[in-house]
């Protein structure tokens, strides 16, 4: 029995897609126009609405059992731009809405402006940039046109980069600049790829391009070049090894609320587009050497990120290197999906998306918790965390649960994801990917146990705290971590939602 608003939303059909697309944009514009100091308070109801919109789209797609399409302006591709909401879109919309809402609640304290007080630089900047990131993510989730997706990527980058340097120190400014330069290189390579696609087929619509490419006998050289360029560009934005240099200082240097969004969502946006290119646009790529290379780079990221995380002295940097490692898991989907049968490959994609969501929730929770710890102690050296578990039990619990979720403890999302990925790995005889996942799991456990050890040590001598976090901040971090941990309890039908729009990997035929 669906509530009235939901029933009404489901009736809208394709028009429904306009809501998540435009809601953050309108929030951004009205927010700037009507008064920066109200932004923090007004943003919260907006984010709740956004979550409702994402749920409505999910319900509509689930009910239809097929993706929703929408031609913007009434002009169908190739002339116009279309939107599509399939299982993958829905997952990204929901995850973004959830994490943005959580961060919005958490950030009331550091970036909120009391009624009557004057607008500050950091408060206006934070809320506007957060809304910008959210707009970019929703457009990435729904867009079907390569150029519209380019503009969405730029929106993401321009909103994310200034968040890194929000505290104005030279270190974070340098980190932001490095991030910007990598991201701009990524954008320009992506655009070059899009240009080559247009040059070969005269359209930028993903569905039309996929049909044209799938229908040809051999993939033309410009198209291969285009796919490689776009992938490399997006890898730079997703910080996959070896293009990862910018991520640790940037994510560790940003304010905790921003780090949460950066690690949980922003890097996933460019990854999402890699998924679109490899699974929707050119599935024949999956069978080739390139997919194996992506997988190998993923393994390198898992090992490199994990080993470096072990060596970090600072908590926030440890969490940032952990992001590098966890991103590596996502790239194992590519080699695994190719060599499975269509049902298996859908499982692989579902597993990948589950890992994406689980990491997003867990990492956001961990960054928020790490931020609270750092602020209370005045520093975030891991060796000096003694007694913090006694002083800030909820916060440390949040961090711990998030860590357990990352480690893949049942019933976390990561556990379910690994089980979905292990099946095809074993079935296709590519045992080395499974081995890499195990190694990664061990490293994750190692660096997190190190943190737990220090946090739990000196339990009888809690340190004196410079400031106490607000209770709601701790609870938000805890909620995120719990979300990641309990993700595996989702009913199987909901997992089927991810598969809507996936027709399985049909090699050599029309996708």
């Amino acid at each position, binding site marked *: 029995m669906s509530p009235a608003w939901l029933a009404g939303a489901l009736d809208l059909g394709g028009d429904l897609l306009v809501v998540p697309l435009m809601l953050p944009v309108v929030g951004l514009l009205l927010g700037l126009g009507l008064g920066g100091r109200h932004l923090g308070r007004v943003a919260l109801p907006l984010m709740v609405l956004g979550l409702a919109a994402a749920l409505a789209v999910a319900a509509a797609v689930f009910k239809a059992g097929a993706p929703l399409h*929408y031609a913007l302006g009434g002009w169908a591709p*190739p*002339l116009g731009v279309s939107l599509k909401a399939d299982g993958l879109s829905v997952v990204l919309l929901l995850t973004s809405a959830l994490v943005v809402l959580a961060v919005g609640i958490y950030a009331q304290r550091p970036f909120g402006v009391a009624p009557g007080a004057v607008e500050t630089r950091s408060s206006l900047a934070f809320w506007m940039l957060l809304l910008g990131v959210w707009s970019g993510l929703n457009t990435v989730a729904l867009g079907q046109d390569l150029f*519209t997706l380019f503009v969405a990527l730029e929106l993401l980058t*321009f909103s994310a*980069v*200034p968040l890194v340097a929000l505290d104005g120190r030279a270190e974070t400014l340098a980190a932001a600049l490095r991030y910007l330069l990598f991201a701009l290189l990524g954008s320009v390579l992506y655009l070059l790829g899009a240009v080559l696609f247009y040059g070969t087929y005269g359209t930028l619509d993903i569905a039309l391009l996929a049909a044209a490419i799938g229908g040809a006998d051999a993939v033309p050289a410009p198209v291969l070049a285009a796919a490689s360029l776009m992938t490399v560009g997006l890898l730079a934005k997703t910080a996959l090894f070896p293009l990862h240099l910018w991520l640790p200082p940037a994510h560790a240097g940003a304010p905790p609320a921003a780090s949460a969004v950066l690690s949980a969502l922003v890097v996933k946006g460019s990854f999402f587009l890699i998924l679109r290119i490899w699974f929707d646009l050119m599935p024949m790529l999956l069978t080739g050497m390139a997919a194996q290379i992506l997988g190998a780079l993923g393994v390198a990221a898992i090992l490199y990120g994990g080993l470096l995380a072990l060596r970090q002295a600072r908590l926030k940097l440890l969490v940032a290197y952990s992001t590098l490692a966890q991103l590596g898991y996502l790239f194992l989907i590519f080699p695994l999906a190719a060599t499975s049968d269509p049902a298996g490959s859908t499982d692989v994609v579902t597993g990948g998306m589950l890992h994406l969501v689980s990491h997003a929730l867990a990492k956001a929770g961990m960054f928020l918790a790490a931020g609270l710890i750092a602020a209370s102690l005045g520093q975030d050296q891991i060796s000096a965390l003694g007694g913090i578990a006694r002083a800030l039990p909820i916060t440390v619990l949040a961090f711990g649960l998030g860590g357990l979720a990352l480690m893949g403890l049942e019933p976390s999302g990561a556990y379910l994801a690994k089980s979905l990925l292990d099946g095809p790995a074993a079935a296709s005889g590519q045992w080395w990917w499974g081995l890499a996942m195990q190694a990664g799991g061990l490293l994750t456990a190692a660096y997190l146990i190190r943190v737990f050890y220090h946090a739990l040590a000196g339990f009888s001598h809690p340190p004196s705290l410079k400031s106490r976090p607000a209770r709601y901040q701790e609870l938000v971090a805890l909620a995120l971590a719990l979300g990641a941990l309990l993700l595996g309890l989702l009913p199987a039908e909901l997992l089927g939602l991810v598969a809507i729009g996936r027709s399985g990997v049909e090699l050599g035929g029309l996708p």
Partner: protein
Amino acid sequence: MSMALAVDAGLALLILGLGLWIIAVRSSFAAVVGFITYGLVLALVWVRLAAVDVAMTEAALGAGLTGVLLLGAAARLPAEAPGGGPSAGLRVLVAVLCALVAAALAAVVLSLPEPAPSLAPLVAENLPPTGVKNPVTGVLLAHRAIDTLLETVVLIPALIGVWALAADRAWGARPGALTPVPSSSALTLLAQVLPPFGILVGIHLVWAGADEPGGKFQGAAVLAAMWVLVVMAGLADLPKVTSRLMRYTLVLGPLVFVAIGLAGIWSAGAFLALPEGYAKPLIVTIEVVLTLSVALVLGLLLAGPPKERA
């Protein structure tokens, strides 16, 4: 070799030479000057490619405003220590790799399909319902309106990002990157005489852009340039970042665009659709309002983060 080909070859060589200059020259200042020249020659190339709208945008925005931005930056950089950067061996390696990339790209360009696929016929067919005669304007504001909308939205976080680089205590102040030049009679004269014409040119570009080459981005760039000139001559003050009026103007364009787009759901069946018969007036409205907002954003992006006046 025909005359046209000779001209094209000359332009191509000039472009390549300027590109090399920009990369290779020692002084940053010289590199920026080279870049401005490069932009202007590139505009000529665009004309040769029969893309006059793009040529105008490149000249005004790519060479003009970007040039001003980079010149200001070059003037504020500390003196560079010579050397630095990767070792000679690494440089050679990178150079070889880049040459390979360029060669691969060139090969790809040469292997693009003939006859070239094109959406031009489709655009031509679908231009009359939009009411405008300039196909680029039709594409920007009707067929692919979402890209234009998103792109105007993108400018706002970019501006916020620039403003966020202020010191905390400087928040209510005016942007400080365009320091007025100590009064120079030549500059003051220029700033008094040129803007009226510039503003007329900008307005004309927007108005005529519906049917002839031109449009809001070109017009906005010209208007922004005139404003910057006036500010640098010390004849006007930049608005404070907290200024209400400025913020309304900033968001007015995109909001009107979104509003018209949403209205399109009821009047024409889809978001950003234009109803029959009202298409051209709506497009012109959007263009005019957007020009205001975009000109303001472009100028403010040049103006930098707020700084306390000493």
